[in-house]
């Protein structure tokens, strides 16, 4: 059974008592969505925290049945991506996209080492870093769709609902996004560091 159904039932019965479980189960997801979309850990932290606070405030205003029927996963993703999009729009004029150095410095990359010999692990880290960087170079609308659909794993319908776009649009954006990621990553493997910088500038 979907654990979110049980969670929604508990939230409907006693919001304050159940909310820490929601935080435990979903904070990582929300931070991931924000970080993979924004690329700045401190901003992503704030967005994820704001999203949780907003979620609680919203739930406090919903009646019992509405909470019980709530599809927690996509609903939280929608709150998060909207906060992240607003933040990016506000900042768009003020500063250029930030690369991943702060994240690496903050020790948040990678999530886990998959074992194996040290070179293999390093390989894994390098792969993730490059993919995360390539993701941040995608146009924001495309990136939001790819992050929700493939990083977070929402369905096309859920992604479309979260972004307030038609499903066809989301499908096309995800398709274009994946194609561009493949192209960029393939290109990067064959180019020198200087042109890589150009790519991410």
């Amino acid at each position, binding site marked *: 059974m979907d654990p979110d159904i049980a969670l929604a039932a508990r939230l409907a019965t006693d919001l*304050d008592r159940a*909310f*820490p479980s929601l*935080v*435990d189960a979903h*904070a*990582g*997801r*929300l*931070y*991931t969505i924000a*970080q*993979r979309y924004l690329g700045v*850990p401190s901003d992503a*932290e704030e967005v*994820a*925290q704001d999203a*949780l*606070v907003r979620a*609680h405030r919203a739930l406090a205003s919903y009646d019992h049945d509405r909470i019980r029927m709530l599809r927690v996963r996509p609903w939280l993703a929608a709150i998060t991506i909207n906060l992240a999009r607003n933040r990016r729009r506000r900042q768009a004029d003020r500063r250029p996209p930030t690369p991943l150095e702060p994240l690496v410095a903050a020790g*948040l*990359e990678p*999530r886990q080492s998959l074992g194996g010999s040290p070179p293999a692990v390093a*390989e894994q880290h*390098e*792969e*993730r870093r*490059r*993919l*995360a960087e390539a*993701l941040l170079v995608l146009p924001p609308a495309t990136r939001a769709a*790819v992050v929700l659909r*493939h*990083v977070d*794993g929402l369905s096309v319908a859920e992604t479309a609902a979260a972004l307030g776009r038609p499903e066809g649009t989301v499908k096309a954006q995800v*398709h274009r996004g*994946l*194609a561009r*990621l*493949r192209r960029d*990553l*393939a290109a*990067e*493997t*064959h*180019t*020198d*560091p*200087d042109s*890589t910088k150009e790519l991410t500038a």
Partner: protein
Amino acid sequence: MNSPVRTSPASRTVFQLGAGAVGPLEVALRDLALPAPPEVKAGALVRLGLADEWAELPSPLGPIGVAWNGNGVSWIDRADDPNVFEERYAARVGRPLSRTSSVPERTAKAVAARLAGDRRVRIPLDFRGRTAFEIAVWMKTLEIPRGEVRPYGWIAAEIGRPRAVRAVGTALAKNPVPLVVPCHRVVRSDGTIGQYSLGGSEAKRTVLAAEGLDALRLEAEARAGQRYVASATTRIVCLPTCHHARRITARHRRPFASLADALEAGFRACRSCRPASGSSLAA
């Protein structure tokens, strides 16, 4: 020639499979998941008032612990032993509590200003789950100036519940934020200093002494029948610790055992300390 950033054949093939079913790129994207930094979880719960943080501040009684959340300061207690602080918090409040290095600057400044007697400083206080009566008692207590005391009956009368003197004492004993809500400034109607949640009468005298009030002398005067003090020049009668009463020179000082006697003698009640509140003359 510049060397390629990455040349391993594996990395090149990984992302080059065609679109369609779940391919390696999709798998790699899914693997971009990150754990939430602890600040995200803890920060959200604290902002929502579902968990608290605490840190130490200095006070006349030694180190005190101040706990707070998004709703305001929620709990103050002695922190000579941090473990005892946390145990008492767990028993009385019960929300998750984590210790931090320092009280947020704004809160620390506000608490310090309050302790120094500045009643204009706003400190958000978390009084969720408390009764309207308790909150009325604590808000009234906040009005007592530094270095002055009022009887329990004065609080009761001022909040419109003149007969609830014992309940006022109970509410003050439950004050979650002593020192900030200065329950040490509320004393028994017979002039004795009364109980104090942060360590009994002795601690209460210490805090009052830090505010410039000699509690032992006050008690002695009360025993000697000096419950009210009037000025022969202004013709106003006050509670003994009222800042107006303390300015009266010895030559013009007229002590009274009862307010009725003072009024009889032609003095009028001070509008600042309102000595009639809680006296037998209260309406």
